[in-house]
Structure formats: C-alpha cells, structure tokens
C-alpha cells in the first residue's frame, strides 16, 4: 500500500507581527484590523518557493539515500521561473540522480495536494519526493499582505516503511475565480472576500469532504484529524459545521504563526498533524483552490520510531525565528519598492549557461571532490589536489558538502558589498570532515557570529539578474540550530 514514508517542513527564519503592517498601512484600509493579528513567516531576501522546498525536502530526506528516489514533484503558485522547470532546480539542488521524473504543479492553491495525489495514485512502488513551497506577493494595503505567509513542506511517498497509508481520495474541480493572475502580472486580482468565504471555502470544501465520505462509506467522526486548507479564520466555524467536524478534530492551520502558504498550506498542516499523530489515526486532508482535493490517510505504527529521526519539521522550524520588525525591510526583500542599489548593485555580470551546465552538480548541489590519494575533501572540483602535501592529479571522487557541518574559521560583515540586507556576512567555513569553502552567511545577524561558530549549508538564491530573467542558486552557511 502506498503512502507517506517521510515528511519534513521549512519555515523561514523571519517572522513579522501583523501589527507592524497595520501600523504602516492601516491608515489606508482600516478594515484590515480584522486580519492584523498574530505574525507571519517571511522568506529572507535570498529565498523563494524553490529554495524553501529544497529546505523542506532536506528536512524530509533525513538519512534516506538520494539514489533511492525516483522523482520529484514541486507545487507552488509562486514559482520563480515560468520556463526552466522549477522542480528540476530542486532535484539538482538535492543532488538527486539524473534518472528521475520531475514535474511542476502550479496554477492553483490545490497544486500541493494535486502533486501528492499524482505521486500516490498508481504509485507502482515508485519513491517520489513531493514538495510544495510558497512565497506569494501581495500588494501593500491588501488583506493578503497580512494573511500570506511563506513556507514549504515535503513528503516522501512509496510503498515501504509507510508512516501514513494513502487510503483514498476525492477531487472536485471548479472554475471558481476567487483569485487570478496572468503570467505577465506580479499580483493577483481577487473578488469580494465575503463571496469567497460563502461560495468558495464554505461550499467547495464540503463537496470534496462529502464526496470522499460517500465514496468510502465513512463518517467525519472516523477521522482523528482533519486538515482543512481554509486560510480564512472567519470561515472555519461554518466550515466545521458544514462537514460535521468538532474543533478537537481540526488541525490548527497556523494562520497566527505562519500564515496562508497557498499550495503549501495543506501539506504543512498535514506535516504538523503527522508530528502529533499516533498509530491508527485517520487523517483527512482537504485542499482548496479551483476546486478541492480530499485525501484519506491512516497512520501506521512506524510513525513512533520515525519521530526520533531528528527532523526539525513544523515544530522545530517554528522555534527557530527572528523578528522582522522593519516594514521597509519586508518591502525590499519582496522587491516591492525601488531601492537605490547604487551603481555597484546594478552591475550584474551575465551568467554563462554553458559554464553552469559544465559545472553540473558542483554549483547546484555543492558537490566538491575528495582526493583518493590523500582523502582531502575540497571545493570546487579541481583536477589537481589542493592539499599542499599531496598534489595528486586526476585522482578524485565526487564529495558532497551540502549535508556536512562546519565551523567558521573567520568572517566579516561587509558594508561595501551590495546586499539586499547589509552588511553582507561571509566567512571561511571549515568542514568537520575536511575541506574549506568561502561562503556567504544568511539567516543570522553579525553580532551573533563568532569564530568557530557551527554552521550548516542552505540552498539559496545567490544573485538575481532581473534584466536577463535569471536567478543564480548556490549554497550559503547558516548558524547550526
């Protein structure tokens, strides 16, 4: 029986209290006081839906060998690329083998469950990584500016060591145009929120739930946990009444701590549910957007041993946080206001796609080499060993650094370098098992950085070249949690 064999999640380091948005923009629309509660997770300037999906996938991957994975599906409505498959950026970042099936699922906030269904339906003993990441833009002054949050979740699916068996599903599709956006546009157009609440969440989600219960002859009370991807807090009560669920069954949608993560929302809430689930629990997952997917899972006894795996998951990432208290910084991170980057910031050297391709997984997955003669790990990949006492030529094997821990040999915070979040912090990272790389640091403040500080690797946007339609991805060091 196919099901979920591992899960992971990612929540960006920055959290912004919604009251900060209201202080800046409440004058424009006082009605947003209703959504100005709690806080939301905000992607750092160097994160997007793909980088967060990679982070969640790494959390999910744990000790699972990469060459046992047959594919990667990535869901989002905020993909960085319209052409250049986003899933393959993630699969290369994860250093999955070339013989994998990759696909993007987008267009709707139900894309996350669509990807999960595609992996689980007819799984045929394939092991697939299903990720959803979201980093949606909202116009300043809109209610979405308050409600949207950033984050990602990832699941491994397969037929062995299943933690939650996939028992069945029911889908409905509806061209219910609550939000829409053409490829040329940065922001969505929405219809009246009361209409979306009454005719959207409150009618479409119950259709999917009823369909699933009828199809498998179940009652809502058969489920220990119900995941309802309904980001509107005001619609939740009516929705529970409509499907007959009691509050104790319904998994917290984390609107007050993370926010509406769109296509990633049902998967992040499912990950949170699995973190607390016990063997035998039935879980109902219901997405929303252009219709709805309802999925039925049943938790297996394997869940108990799995939790000892050291994954951060939702709970671990929620605990790792830093206040983003400056609204202007949020606007800059999301590129919502023109910023005087200066002539230095404007200078972006074109990226040679041929060189990038030639370098293969060295750049995408931080794969260096290890000298077979002396055992020294090194980056970047070179033909001649860098160890001054060795120098062997053409005697290298591939050596991944992305999963290795290191410490800082030295560092600085540079105010001259152009950065979206100055100072630009970088340092020499010495890896515990050998090797040294000069890397940018992210998700940290300069006053917390020290020589010998432990760091781990994180897949990030290294630079953006908007004029040429390109984002360069690479790895940065982040303080080890």
């Amino acid at each position, binding site marked *: 029986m196919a099901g979920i064999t591992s899960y992971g999640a990612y929540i960006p380091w920055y959290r912004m209290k919604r009251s900060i948005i209201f202080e800046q923009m409440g004058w424009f629309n006082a009605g947003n006081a209703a959504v100005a509660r709690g806080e939301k997770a905000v992607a750092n300037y160097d994160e997007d839906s793909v980088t967060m999906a990679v982070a969640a996938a790494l959390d999910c991957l744990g000790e699972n060998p990469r060459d046992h994975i047959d594919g990667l599906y990535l869901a989002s409505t905020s993909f960085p690329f319209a052409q250049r498959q986003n899933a393959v950026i993630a699969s290369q970042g994860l250093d999955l083998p070339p013989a994998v099936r990759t696909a993007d699922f987008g267009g709707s906030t139900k894309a996350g469950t669509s990807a999960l269904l595609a992996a689980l339906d007819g799984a045929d003993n394939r092991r697939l990584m299903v990720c959803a990441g979201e980093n949606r833009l909202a116009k300043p002054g809109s209610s979405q500016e308050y409600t949207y949050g950033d984050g990602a979740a990832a699941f491994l699916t397969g037929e062995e060591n299943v933690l939650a068996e996939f028992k069945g599903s029911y889908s409905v599709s509806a061209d219910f145009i609550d939000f829409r956006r053409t490829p040329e546009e940065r922001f969505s157009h929405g219809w009246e929120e009361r209409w979306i609440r009454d005719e959207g969440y409150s009618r479409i989600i119950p259709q999917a739930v009823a369909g699933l219960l009828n199809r498998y002859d179940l009652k809502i009370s058969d489920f220990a946990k119900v995941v309802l991807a309904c980001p509107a807090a005001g619609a939740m009560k009516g929705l529970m009444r409509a499907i007959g669920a009691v509050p104790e069954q319904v998994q917290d949608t984390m609107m007050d701590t993370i926010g509406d993560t769109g296509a990633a929302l049902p998967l992040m809430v499912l990950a949170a549910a699995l973190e607390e689930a016990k063997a035998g629990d039935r879980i109902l997952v219901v997405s929303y957007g252009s219709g709805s997917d309802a999925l039925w899972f049943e938790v297996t006894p394997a869940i108990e041993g799995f939790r000892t795996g050291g994954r951060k998951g939702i709970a671990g990432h929620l605990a790792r946080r830093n206040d983003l208290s400056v609204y202007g910084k949020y606007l800059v991170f999301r590129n919502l206001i023109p910023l005087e980057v200066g002539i230095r910031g404007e200078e972006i050297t074109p990226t040679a796609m041929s*060189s990038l391709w030639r*370098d293969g997984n060295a750049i995408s997955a931080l794969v260096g080499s290890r000298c077979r003669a002396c055992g020294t790990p090194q980056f970047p990949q070179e033909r001649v060993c860098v160890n001054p006492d060795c120098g062997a030529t053409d005697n290298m094997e591939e050596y991944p650094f992305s999963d290795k821990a290191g410490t800082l040999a030295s560092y600085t915070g540079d105010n*001259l370098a*152009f950065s979206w979040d100055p*100072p630009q912090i970088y*340092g*020499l990272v010495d890896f515990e098992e050998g090797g040294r*790389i000069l890397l940018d640091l992210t998700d940290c403040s300069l006053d917390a950085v020290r020589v010998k500080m432990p760091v781990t690797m994180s897949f990030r946007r290294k630079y953006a070249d908007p004029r040429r339609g390109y984002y360069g991805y*690479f790895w940065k060091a982040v303080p080890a949690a």
Partner: protein
Amino acid sequence: MAQGINNEVAIIGMGCTTFGELWDRSASDLMVDAFQEALEDAGIEKKDIDAAWFGTCFDEVNVGKSALSLTKTLKLPFIPATRVENFCASGTESFRGACYAVASGACDIALAMGVEKLKDTGYGGLPDFGNLLGSQNRAIFANLTAPGGFAMLATAYFDKYGLSPEEGKRALAHISSKSHHNGTLSPKAHLRSEVSIEKIMNAPIIAWPLGLFDCCGVSDGAACAIVCRASRASEFRKDPVYVKGLQIAVTSGEEMAHQKWDGTHVIPTYRAGCAAFKEAGITNPREEISMMEVHDCFSITELSTYEDLQISPRGKAVEDIEAGFFDLDGTIPCQTDGGLKCFGHPIGASGIRMIYEEYKQLQGKAGERQVASPRIGLTHNLGGFPCMSVVSVAVFGNTL
C-alpha cells in the same frame, strides 16, 4: 642554481604623479607626467629606451587591453612593449619585466610604467569584481569586496591572539594614524591630514572590524621607473639605486580550500619575503632593513605583513606597533610617504609609487620625511585577498 638579480640592475630615473581623485586628468595625462619626470631624472631621451612593460589592472574602466595605451600615449617608437596584470602587484610586475630584460642582457635600458584611473566608476571602493575570478565568480564566490576579504584576516588574528575588538582596533588605529602623519609630509599624497587614534577607532565600519580609516583610499595615479644594468648605472647618475631582490609569490590555492592555513597571515607574503631576502643576501630583516613601504591596503594587512616579513615575531606585531617601532622616528619606519593609506591605491601604479619612495629615500631626497642614513629599503604588494593572493617583495640598496 639560480643566482637571482641581486646587484644586476639599477634604477636610473623615476617619475610619480600626484595621487588623488583627479577628475580632470586621464590615464594618458598621468602617464605623460610620470614619464617626463623619469626621463629628466635619468637624463636620457625616449629613443634610448629599448623595451617597455606596462602594469595596469582594471583595464575595463581604465586604459583598455594590451600595451597599446602606453605606446600610443608616449609615442614610443615601435619598441617591444608588454602589458602585465597581476592584481595589486601589477606595478611591481611591470618593474620585474623591465629588470629581467636588462639583467638578461636583452636590453640596455627598459621602462616600467604603472597607471590606474579608478575614479571613473561612479562609486566608492574598487570597481565591482564582476568576472574578476573568471566566469564562476558570481556563481560560487562569496559576495565579497576587498575590505571584507581583509577584514577576515583581522577577525582571525584577533581570535588567535586573544585580542578584544577594542585592543585589536587600537593597534590597527596606531598603524593608520602613523601613516596619516607621514602623509602630511608627502607632497604627492592624496590624503594629507593628521588623524587621531580616537577618530580612527570611532569611524564608521566598512567591513567588521575594519572602519573607514583602516581602509586605504581609492585614487588615480601613475609612476614609472627606468632601469639599466648596474654596471652601466654610473654613466647616467652618481646615485643610482640597486635592485637587491625582486620576488613574486602566488598562492597555490590552498588557503581557501584547505584547512592548513589559520587565516591570520598571508602565506605568499612570507614566501616572497623569504625568497627576496635570500636573493638580496639578507639574513636578519629586523636588523638589516632601514625602511619599508608595505601594502597597507588595510591596516590589518600592514600588521600581518610585519610578521610575514619577519620584522616582528609571530603574534608580537602589536607590541612593536605600540612601541613606535614602525613610526617615522622608529627603528624601521614604515610607509614613510604615507603609504596606500594616504596615496590611495591606483592598482597598477602603487608598486612603482612605493619603489619611488624607496628610491628617493635611498638618495636622501625625501625632504621632511627623510629617514636618517638608510641603506636598504623594501617594497611589498599584496594583490587579491589574504585567502588567495599575489605578492611581490622587492629589496633596494644604495650601494653595490
């Protein structure tokens, strides 16, 4: 066994422009000025020059590629001319080319010219590095600048020797304050004001822990040297300056990718220093060297250079600095003309500008900043970053 060029080559003429933000002058203007001074100083004519070397680094914001801009500017008459580029050692690299040409006997008289026009970028600091390290630069290299690259040297040094940021920055401030004092005595310098240690320590941070006055300026300038074989020097002047040692060391790349290096000093400086001292027959640098112009792109660079050149023992530079050992009236005055700190750093020109100061000092023509009876002078350039550098060390004397 290689013999080196100790006492094989003599400098018979030099020229150096005023350095600064020379908005009204081009690289060509600067080259003509430096060249005119050198020709007059040497008492030769342009036609006497057999070959030329041309050092410049950021050609893309400056003079363009090749040696064309040198020969076209000076109207050199179809002689061999070569452009060299080796980061901040570009000037000394061009000097090396000229010295080797006359030492080998291939030429009688050779010219080394270094120039850089940096103030046409529209922003402070060096030009953006872009593809400085090749096409992979943007893709994998940390988003670093020169101040940041050198700041990491300070971070590691402070950590290793247990200096608090306050203690470390105070020693660095002494270095900068001393150079600014010397700069006030140096008519061709860009920055010519005294700067107090307190002001230096409280200046805005450029790259932690380095503040504004820990960093050298960026400016425009040119300098050139005319060399011949030492045996012929007396034909041109009575006070030639002799090249004793002239060495370059370039990293193998191990500092950045192997954990052996501790990040507190610069291996190529140590290696180039050892090679130059050997070539010059110097066995005890602390005792034998009269004065130095080292590559003080940042105050921490100067500090670590004291140790790498074996003037101060490892970890003891701070003691020497605070004892005034490197001050103008100290045992080994360093940056007697104010250094990069006061001249700024037009990359291709800096190495030859430093040689110009040693040349004048060794001839006793350094005016108010003249060191008493100097015998041996040293220049040092460090290009790149401490973790990945090109270093030149040159030793000069006024007797054979």
